[in-house]
């Protein structure tokens, strides 16, 4: 690996170039880790749901704990109306979590450290939530932009601010995850570089930082997946319950 901390984020083609019309959809290292994460999720949860024993084994316990964790998170933030969207939020949470965690293994690629990936995920959420809102409330969904109890003089300003904040949701959602992952991994790379450049004499301090940062980054990996999922729940709550 090169000394430049940003080279870890480079995407390169694996195998031949695949073209779909004018678009290049070649299989890359990013695609590889998306596939690995998805497969890992599917394998773990398939094993965890295969047989139902009264006293669950470890993998079943893991699957069921994740299930109850996410379902509790959804019912706490978005209420019982959000139940049909449970599988989507569960998939989203697990996908982001596994991509983040897989990125913590040295020499792997972190899918979620790419703005385009997080932006597409956030756009799924944004478009989905907007569609749900309009289906549930029709044109009345626009009331989301008109908070109650605001003086009529301030209303034009508030509505503009609300619209901007609504439209910036996918950006804030995607940039939060992307920036966190990128910053964390860059920091770890920088400290790793310090260990090498300072050698046996001075390298111990950055090494200890590196160890501490690894722990922190694992926490961040979980936390950002959680934040991503819970913000999705909150947006969904806005669309389902419309009390602003």
């Amino acid at each position, binding site marked *: 690996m090169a000394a*430049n901390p*940003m*080279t870890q*984020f*480079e*995407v390169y*083609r694996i195998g031949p170039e695949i073209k*779909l019309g004018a*678009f*290049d*959809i*070649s*299989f*890359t290292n*990013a*695609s590889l880790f*998306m*596939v690995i*994460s*998805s497969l890992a*999720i*599917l394998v773990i*949860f*398939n094993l*965890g*749901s*295969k047989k*139902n024993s*009264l006293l669950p084994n470890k993998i*079943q316990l893991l699957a*069921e704990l994740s*299930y*109850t964790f996410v379902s509790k998170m959804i019912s706490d933030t978005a209420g019982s109306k959000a139940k049909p969207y*449970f*599988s*989507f939020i*569960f*998939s989203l949470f*697990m*996908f982001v979590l596994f991509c983040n965690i897989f990125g913590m293994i040295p020499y792997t690629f972190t*899918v979620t*450290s*790419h*703005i*385009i*990936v997080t932006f*597409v*995920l956030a756009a*799924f959420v944004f478009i989905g939530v907007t569609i749900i809102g309009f289906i549930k409330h029709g044109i009345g969904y626009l009331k989301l932009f008109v908070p109650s109890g605001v003086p009529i003089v301030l209303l034009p300003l508030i509505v503009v601010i609300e619209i901007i904040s609504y439209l910036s949701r996918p950006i804030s959602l995607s940039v939060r995850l*992307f*920036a966190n992952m*990128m*910053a964390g991994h860059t*920091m770890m790379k*920088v400290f790793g570089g*310090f260990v090498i450049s300072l050698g046996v004499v*001075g390298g111990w*301090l*950055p090494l200890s*930082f590196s160890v501490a940062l690894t722990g922190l980054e694992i926490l961040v990996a979980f936390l950002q997946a959680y934040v991503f999922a819970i913000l999705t729940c909150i947006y969904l709550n806005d669309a389902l319950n419309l009390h602003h």
Partner: protein
Amino acid sequence: MIKKIFFQLIFFNLFFLKEVFAAESGGMPQLNPEFWISQIFWLTLTFGILYIVLSKLILPKISVNLELRKSQIQENIEAAEKQRESSEAKLKEYDDIISKSKLEANNIFKEARENVVKEINAKKETLDKQIDKEIKKVEQEINLLRKGASEKINKIAIETTSELLVKLIGTEVNNSSISAIVDDLSKRNGDKYYGN
């Protein structure tokens, strides 16, 4: 000293990162659009497959498993509750039987005692009656004897008196006059002699 430098380096690095991010310089591979389409495509594909498989196959199974376990535990708790109730009922029944039998035993004991007391009383009465009868009989005999005794004594007294008179005086006195005197005496002093 070295520590200070490290801390400064960390902070500078953070600033550096922020500046890189803000400036969107060419140094960030994330902003190179060469593989954007590929990433979007593969993300949609993998995430879509993940979502479909999870929502159609795996999550319903986990949900069913959880529900089954919940209901099974509930059933077990209910069964345990039922058994507890039945055992309590049986205990109550047992207590009832014991108290009933105790009462019965008491009753039997009382009855037996009453019977015995009655029998004893009856026997006592008959015995009392018999004793009374015998006492009356004996009293009658005594009375008869007593009545006879005064006449006999009078007779004896008359005979002895006449003999005494014969010996003392040498002449026979008329029996009837003696008997009159004896009768008179016995009438006057009969109480003294017979204790009546």
